[in-house]
């Protein structure tokens, strides 16, 4: 009897709280094995060895705030954003001594394979759902894009150096794209929206940052450093740069306004007016981004960059917003490309070479292939009978005693790993058994889903 009731191939059980983010990292040079970094609702950051499916490292954020987003920056650097309004960057280090750490709950003893060091932390507004974007701009130096400290509808941009707390500089403050975008979309069908809404998601693709908004608009911008503009001003050799000179003169005489400018290079209105729920880099084309929303569309976004170098606004071609921080080519139109998938309310999305993993609000993660046919459905259902252990509770709070029947555990995050076929490089210092398991794991693609009961499931696709 093949059942409707199925358990996942592998279930990672450690979190006692809802899993809020999962990120797989296949960085064999640093981690030896593919790892999974997960965070939960009570501040636990966990690194899993996905081969042994055991916990390798646990970090508990003080006071157990909910973890919002995790990013692996390479070189054993992990950035984690949590509800205590902090973005922390952890530097991990292999700990040969394998200390045993007692995690607070249930006196679970956990072997720690890594030591950690918090190499940077910065306050970030987390009164919203947004994650953050970090770009490495120089060794040990990063640029952070996140929600504005007061208003989650606008963004702030910072730069900092690791290990130097006072190196934090705010490059841009409270950039709001609304005016620019409404200018640009004035003559289109969807010009009536009165705000972009809060930022729902950031996604960095090389030097581009995609922002998904509550209104369903996706904006992609790239960062213009001040120096480039300054150079333009004093160096008048090239004809193109002299155009800028004219522009400056004609529009505004204050030259300093052009430092740290953002150029919007792409806009999509495909999901309007539904909020953007997640963004994912396409596995097939690393410059393409996929987006999900409450509708059944998966937006496809690819910013067309005409010039990899400085593209300067000219009189006719560019709109500059009032804050002098955002420019956009006037001719930039809104993109609406998408594919239709057989589900709606896709809270999280991960693109894989073989298709997509879509985590739905209904507690079902769907894997679709490249023709959008459903390959697999992953979910965790509860039994039909719900029990309440306390009779007293119902006396005190009548409305609470109505037991809400939710058949499925909710999905908080999805991720996936692409199978790499059979040609897997031999790793040294690895036993044959481990090698075999590694090969086996990497030979198929995996769909990874984090649930709100604290379980993370792995299913091969």
């Amino acid at each position, binding site marked *: *009897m*093949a*059942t*409707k*009731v*199925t*358990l*996942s*191939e*592998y*279930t990672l*059980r450690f979190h006692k709280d*809802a899993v809020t983010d999962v990120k797989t990292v296949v960085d064999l040079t640093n981690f030896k094995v593919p790892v999974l970094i997960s965070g939960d*609702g009570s501040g636990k950051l966990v690194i899993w060895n996905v081969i*042994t*499916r*055991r916990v390798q490292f646990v970090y508990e954020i003080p006071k157990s705030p909910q973890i919002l987003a995790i990013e692996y920056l390479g070189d054993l650097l992990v950035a984690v954003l949590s509800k205590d309004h902090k973005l922390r960057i952890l530097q991990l280090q292999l700990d040969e001594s394998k200390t045993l750490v007692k995690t607070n709950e*249930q006196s679970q003893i956990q072997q720690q394979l890594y030591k950690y060091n918090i190499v940077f932390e910065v306050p970030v507004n987390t009164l919203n759902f947004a994650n953050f974007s970090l770009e490495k701009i120089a060794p040990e130096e990063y640029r952070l894009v996140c929600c504005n400290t007061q208003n989650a509808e606008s963004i702030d941009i910072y730069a900092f150096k690791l290990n130097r707390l006072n190196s934090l500089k705010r490059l841009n403050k409270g950039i709001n794209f609304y005016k620019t975008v409404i200018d640009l979309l004035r003559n289109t069908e969807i010009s009536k929206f009165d705000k972009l809404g809060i930022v729902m998601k950031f996604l960095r693709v090389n030097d581009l940052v995609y922002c998904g908004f509550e209104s369903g608009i996706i904006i992609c911008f790239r960062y213009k450093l001040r120096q480039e503009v300054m150079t333009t001003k004093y160096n008048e050799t090239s004809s193109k740069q002299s155009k800028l000179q004219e522009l400056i003169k004609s529009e505004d005489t204050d030259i300093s306004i052009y430092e740290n400018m953002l150029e919007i290079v792409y806009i999509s209105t495909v999901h309007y007016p539904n909020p953007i729920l997640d963004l994912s880099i396409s596995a097939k084309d690393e410059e393409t981004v996929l987006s999900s929303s409450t509708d059944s569309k998966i937006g496809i976004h690819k910013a067309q960059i005409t010039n990899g170098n400085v593209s300067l606004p000219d009189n006719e071609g560019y709109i500059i917003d009032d804050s002098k921080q955002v420019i956009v080519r006037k001719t930039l139109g809104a993109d609406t490309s998408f594919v239709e998938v057989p589900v709606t309310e896709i809270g999280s999305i991960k693109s894989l070479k073989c298709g997509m993993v879509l985590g739905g*609000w*209904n507690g079902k993660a769907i894997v679709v292939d490249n023709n959008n046919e459903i390959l697999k459905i992953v979910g*965790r*259902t*509860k*039994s*039909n*009978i*719900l*029990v*309440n*252990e*306390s*009779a*007293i*509770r*119902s*006396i*005190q*709070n*009548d409305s*609470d*005693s*109505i*037991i*809400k*029947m*939710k*058949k*499925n555990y*909710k999905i908080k995050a999805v991720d996936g790993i692409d199978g790499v076929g059979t040609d897997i490089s031999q790793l040294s210092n690895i*036993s*044959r*058994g*481990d090698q*075999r*398991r590694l090969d086996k794991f990497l030979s198929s693609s995996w769909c990874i889903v984090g649930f*709100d*009961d604290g*379980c993370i499931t792995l299913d091969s696709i």
Partner: protein
Amino acid sequence: MVADSEAFQEIRPLCVELSKLAFQERNIFDSESSQLKDALKSIEQKLSGFQTDSLSLNFADYVFVPIGSLLKQERLGTPQTELVLQIIGHLLRLCWHHSGTLNQELATQLFPLLTYLISPDKDNEKLKGMSVYYKLVSAQLLKQFFTSVSQQSYKQEFFTSGGAKLLPSLGHCITILLDLLGSVPYDIKLQLCTLEGLEILYKKLASNGELLSFVLPGNISAFAKILSLPGLNIQYKVVSSTLHIFTLLLRTVYDDVDLNVSESNKNVLQLLPETLDDDLKLSNDLRLIKMDGYLSESSKKHRDIAWLKATSAQIKRALNSFTEKNIKRQNASINMELEKMAYIALSNCSISLSNCSDDFLNILVSLKSSYLLQLPNICGSLREIIESKFVKIGNALHFDDTIDLDSLSFAFKILWQMEPDKSMLSLATTSILDSLSTFSEQSIQKYEKSKVIEQTSNVIIKTVLQESDANQEFLLPYLPNDTESSLSQLIKSIGSTIDNNEILDETINSLLTGDLKSNIQQKLLSLWVSTRILVGSKLLTVTSTDDELLDFGNCESEVVPDSCYSILEYGNELYQEIVFLTEGSQMSKNSEQAYAIVLDSIMQVSEVMNKEFESELIDYIYIIVDSLASSSPIIRNRAQVCAMSIAKNLYSGSIQNLLMNNVDYLVESISNRLNSGMTERASKVLMVICKLSGYEVIDKFKDVIETVFRLLDYYHGYSELCLQFFQFFEIIIIEMKKTFLNESDNSKIHEDVSINTCGFAPWGIQNWTQLVSLLDSHTMKDAKLAETIEVEIGEPNNFQDYFDQKLKEIDSDDEEEIEEDSDFDMESQFGGKEQMENKWESPIPKESYRILLKIINYSDRLLMHPSKPLKVQILKVVKMMLPLLATQKDSLLPPIAQIWGSIAECIMDSDFSIVKPACECVQMIIKHSKDFVTKRFVDMWQELQKRSHILKEVHLNNTNTSQTSVDLIFHQKFAPITKDALISLSSMLLEGIAVSELLLSETVVKEMMYCCIQVLPTDTIASKSIYLGDVIWDIMH
């Protein structure tokens, strides 16, 4: 000399007497007269009484005079001859024993005389017809003669000096001795005596190769005849002595140095064209032998190449005729002689008897002789022997020839020490594997039919980790145990020769990848063989000398050979294959064996890998635990040994730790089984895990239990599946009880159970402790009662709320899923939780308590199931969990209210085997929820009277109108099952009366009592309370 003269005095009259007869004329002389016989006899007896060996020569002369004269007579009767021989023997012993006492002349005269006396004819025809006693006397005499001569200075030249005129007699004498040796019926004493004589002769008197070479053929054939006799007919001492002399002869006659032979590879052929005859196969390959001095020395020499060729062939034939037979006798002294013979022959006669060297080597191999190591230049031959033994290993298996297997493993090791050879390895392993699989195919049919013992899950759970069977080593049912262990030992020896991981990997890989298409049986054997090779190869590192250990130990033990993984992977694949084959069908002997071999291989490899095995548990722990839950006790045993070994290596002996540390992997595997519908295995394995590692483990995979519940949602129609799950729930509850309720609670629960099963508390008390705890519990109960009254002040509220909640629950059942922002939801939950936490009193955590609530919920649902075993199981589970639920009083009541109806319905059942547990269950409910169920109890009684089948059994005449005239009828005879049910019912009623006494009218109580007194003694009931006492009195009078 005092003795001498005394002896003389004593013997003289006797000699005189004899002389009278001896010196008679020939024509008067009666050679067979009894007179003569008596005279001889008296002398013989006298002489045999003398214990000394140093009587004077004069004495001898004196005695010998009449004897000599007697011998001059024409003939002598047999008894007389016998006596004469004895007398001469005595003389040799008494007078001619010491050096110088027997002069050569006398001896030279005496020797032909003696041989003639013993056997006048050359063919010993007469002798053969003689009595055993006569033969023995003859043998003793000759032995005595040789002994005496061997004391003399001329012993070496005795036969050769004087122109060899004694040689004919010597020849005759030897034939006599040989004939005596072989004379039927066999007499041990005679044979031993003969052999002793021969030994003295060959060793001390005629230890001359050239001389003995003449008598050699006769000796060899006589010895061969003796040695090839069946063991029943010939005593081992005779055999070993014969062998001893055989060896002596070989050594003397064929000594390489004495013969002056050397190995050569040319020229000899031309000299000896006759070597081309048919006997070539048996004889020496003379091309390789050169006899130096053959041409130069005189032609007198008897032992020439031709002789060598002929006789060596005879030796070989002789050897072939007896060695194997005697090795099989496994007699220590025979073996020792054989070993010596082979060793001596190989070290002294290796060239001259080179045609036999294989045979001798074979002997040493078969006897596992350490002499092998002392012999030079045997490598080649040894290899050939081993090779041929490997080729014929199938025979050894067929005939259970453990000796052969043992010796082979010995020889293999020896050879490897001399000359490691990889090709030998592969020959060995492949031939073992081939013959083993051929053999197994032939004999497997027999075993296929034999039935496998399969046990039910109850037995499995009870006995898990309890049995201990010492008979663990044997895995191949078609081989006798000792053969298997020899074979196993052989393979391990082969393995032990491999000291290098590369060769090991190569060998094992070739075994495992040998033939991919082969059937399971062959694969199993490959696994079995390779496992043993691996184990063997690792034994060496452990047992090698200290120096080696230092060299290898450090670097080698670190690196786990690849073959460990190969074996594990192979075993795993095989396991999956067997699972696939056996799924859904009855277990066959073959698959039972297969599981056992796979488990064994895992265990062996885990021992080799030691700590390194820990990371492999991810793939193999399930196989072990699954087998722990197998229905076959053999597999369970094997799994147990395996689990213990792993636990010993990795978790300092704790199986619980082994399971706890790997419970995640186990759960994954179980999930997979559940996914693919293998619920039976899965639930059994869950039970075993839970049983072995305690309740803690449940905590770790709550979601699997959730899945079990979900499966119940979907498949509640399948009674088997539900039954399995409820058996699992039973284990959960037991373990939960162990974990969360402390000792005193435990004993209380235990005692409660005993009340239920025995019907009524004081009944069934079996020992003093029970009584004490019973008394204690009464006092505790009183205390508890006071408590509960306090606690239950808010009761009416609860009751009302219970109904409210009940209604809402029903509502909520119909509700579709409600989506809502999780964050808010979570926060509100938090708020709620905090409020509740203050009220939580139970030692059982809420999470676990919730599981209990779920179980009782499903119990309620599934009690509607028509399956009887399921109902019984559910009732059992409910009864068990009530004390646990009762730890949180408030939460106990809603489920009780819910399930009451279903259980009450079971009491109405027409099947009394359901009624009994249902009553027990209700009794337990009443006990724990007290007056909460009073009303229900009263109502139930009314229902019972209307509908119950069990009450009909006691024929309660429910004629309310004529209460007083109720005829009290005792039904003494109930069917056991009815009686049990009635006892339970009565106990339940008593329990119910206890809590609802005041609410019941006397009439009702009376009705109940009518039922109770049918099965319970009235005194007991009456002692329950004063009120009941009154009622009972009323009924009885």
